[in-house]
């Protein structure tokens, strides 16, 4: 397969520099409101600060992919004497917890690097972090060219997810006979 160049956008998270102010959460929720900045609510944010001051736990985590099912097991990490659960680091919007979901609809949220309209030079959370706990980097990488599925395939995949492969095959077969 051919090699192609791809821009990798990275938010570098330096937890030692975090002062715990949650401006990242606030401004994320404001930027993604419609109209822009019209409402403010960290519960709608695509970044969450795991913040437990007394244990000195300050961990910004970004919303990633939606997960249909929760994990079978939950591991724990101890880093510099501080205990974290696997969940703390996890970016998924998943059935086992309320994070990274619209509070009203329960629909999953995902960080889009503030690429929507108008695209920002840097994600808003980075712009609002004067302490440089969050910094932004773009680098170029060569990657294998990916075969992109067509719209129909993506649509069918969703149907398969929901109804199972056999039901979809049966339905397509029935449609063909009409």
């Amino acid at each position: 397969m051919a090699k192609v160049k791809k821009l990798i956008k990275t938010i570098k998270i330096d937890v030692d520099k975090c002062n715990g102010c949650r401006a990242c959460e606030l401004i994320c929720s404001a930027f993604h409101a419609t109209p822009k900045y019209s409402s403010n609510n960290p519960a709608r944010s695509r970044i969450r600060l795991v913040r437990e001051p007394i244990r000195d736990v300050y961990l910004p985590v970004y919303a990633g992919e939606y997960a249909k099912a929760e994990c079978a097991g939950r591991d724990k990490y101890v880093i510099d004497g501080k205990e974290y659960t696997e969940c703390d680091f996890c970016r998924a919007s998943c059935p086992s917890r309320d994070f990274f979901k619209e509070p009203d609809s329960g629909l999953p949220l995902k960080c889009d690097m503030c690429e929507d309209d108008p695209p920002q030079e840097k994600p808003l959370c980075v712009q609002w972090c004067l302490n440089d706990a969050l910094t932004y980097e773009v680098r170029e990488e060569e990657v294998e060219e990916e075969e992109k599925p067509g719209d129909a395939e993506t649509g069918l995949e969703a149907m398969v997810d929901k109804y199972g492969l056999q039901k979809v095959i049966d339905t397509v077969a029935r449609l063909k006979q009409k």
Partner: protein
Amino acid sequence: MRYGETGFNLEIDLSRGSVEREATDSKLTELYLGGLGTNAKLLWDRVPPEIEPFSPDNLLIFAAGLLAGTPAPGANRTIISTISPQTLLMAYSMMGGFFASELKYAGYDKIIFRGKSPKLVYIWINNDKVEIRDAAHLKGKGAVETAELIKKELKDPNVQVAAIGLAGENRVYTASIEQGRSSSSRLGVGAVMGDKGIKAVVVRGTKDINLARPAEFYGLSKDILQYIKVRGDNPVPGVMTILQGLGSPQEMLHVDEKWHTENFSWGNARTRRKDFWNKEIEDRWKTVQEQARTRLVSCYNCPMKCGAIISLPGMSTYMMKCFSKLTYTMAAFVDDLDFGFRIAQRATEYGVDGFSTPQIMAFAFELREAGILTENDFAGCPTDNEGKFYWLLDRIVRREGIGDVLANGVYWAARQIGKGAEAFDHNTIKKHEQLPLKLGMLNPVYFLMYATGEKINITQIEGQFPQAPFPTMEERENFVKDWIQVPDDKFKQYLLGWEPRGDHSNPYYPTVDMSVDIVDWQEKMHYIDDALGVCAGLSSFPLKPPYHIHNYPQFISSGVGIDMDEGKLTQVYNRNRNLIRAVNVRRGLRRADEKPPEDHWRKRFPELEEQLLDAYYKFKGWDNQGIPTKKSLQGMDLGYVAEDLEQRGIIKNG
């Protein structure tokens, strides 16, 4: 739809166990903004002067500032108002942290408590669900400990907890309300909370705060952030380190304490330790502070780092800010800062004011030395300076033995003890302990602020006009060059003309009229901050702050949707200033109460001081007793206040 605010208050009657969600009148927001302004309106309307602080009819109000929860950096203050058991006047004690924004996201601007719970409870506010829960298992627990236990109990680390410790439960007059890195410490608000039987108020919110003109408001907030960055990179030259930057004094960051330790008056606000700061102390304090401080932390939506997480071996972790680092150590005449961090941990768990409490303890040991208190009063007290302070702190918060009297603060304790103890009460104003500072020459601006401030705490009145003149004209010109915060260019002239010595120096310069102008400006910014819930550390307190009278109206217009300009905002300030004055005047405050401690300055000028008060009262539209006149009240839409004061015979002949 309401913008900036939620438009709802929670009314909780603890005697009946009832909870109501009440819609508020948007007209009140236009007249008083929110936070302190609407708190004062509630206290005026619902707490007549006959109501004692510990009466079930006293209110305890937790208010989020009008802009809390919005992107305005540093808009995170909770304004707690009630009648103070210590001063018997209106108390408004504020805290930063994460409580105010959470309350707004839960859908409320204020929580208004009335009545008294028959048993200890905590209040659990989870959006629309509000519960009054039993707190028997939290009785006697520390304030930080309580917050951690509640988080575990509710299985939610994201709840925000404002709690009292043992001091509040025992109605100690210096009891605070603690909330993470922040606390509402002054004027005994924790004692009223304890009297009402509330161990903690817990809140979690996941709703929206809407803005009227969002893009404009966002732009203004971004400008503030950029200014903070630029201002951080450009400290003000020619003033001491602690005054160069923004935020509350950066006590957690800086380790050089030569100025505070040597220039303040320690113990019972009496003893200068002029050669205290030597190399050995400097090295030791630096090591101790750097080891104790795990991380510098901020309040909600603020890039500053005014607080710190403090962890020392053998004790549980807590958070500290500002000045408490010094107050216990220095009041106890201890040389090791390690003691300061350790006793402050215990004091934070007990929930006491780190300003007043060390002074009360030093006052008690002075009385023992003078033979007014006896060895019987101190039976069992260790002899070393550290041990003595721990011992007495324990007695005070438990109200045991002599601690019971001392728990009422210096003013009341002095009168209860008698036998000449009154003479040792030399550093209170309106019955409230003050900063331990004793100076030489009267400063007319500070005279007025100390005398007339309703908050009775200089750091909540002073602000952006330099505390001392710059020695050279070049420095002055340099300072005024980019002084965009002044409401009027005349303030630049006042500063340019201010000399360290000669005719144009203290006490006769700034002149009486200039002094009144300067105080009015500084007060104005504090009153606006306290209504909006913006931290004084980004506005009224430091030199050249990001928020000022020229950009505030835009924040209010675009955020809340009220058509605001500088003139109207000044009217709101005057209304709030006069309303709080009226609450206190109705409770008996008069000119005779308005005086700084007699020994605050060595050189006093009684005639000038009377002129200053006269001019200030006149400027405010008050009579010579400091009582607002009927005419001036009517001019501020406070006709109902004038009517009440007239009926009570407080306003006579208009």
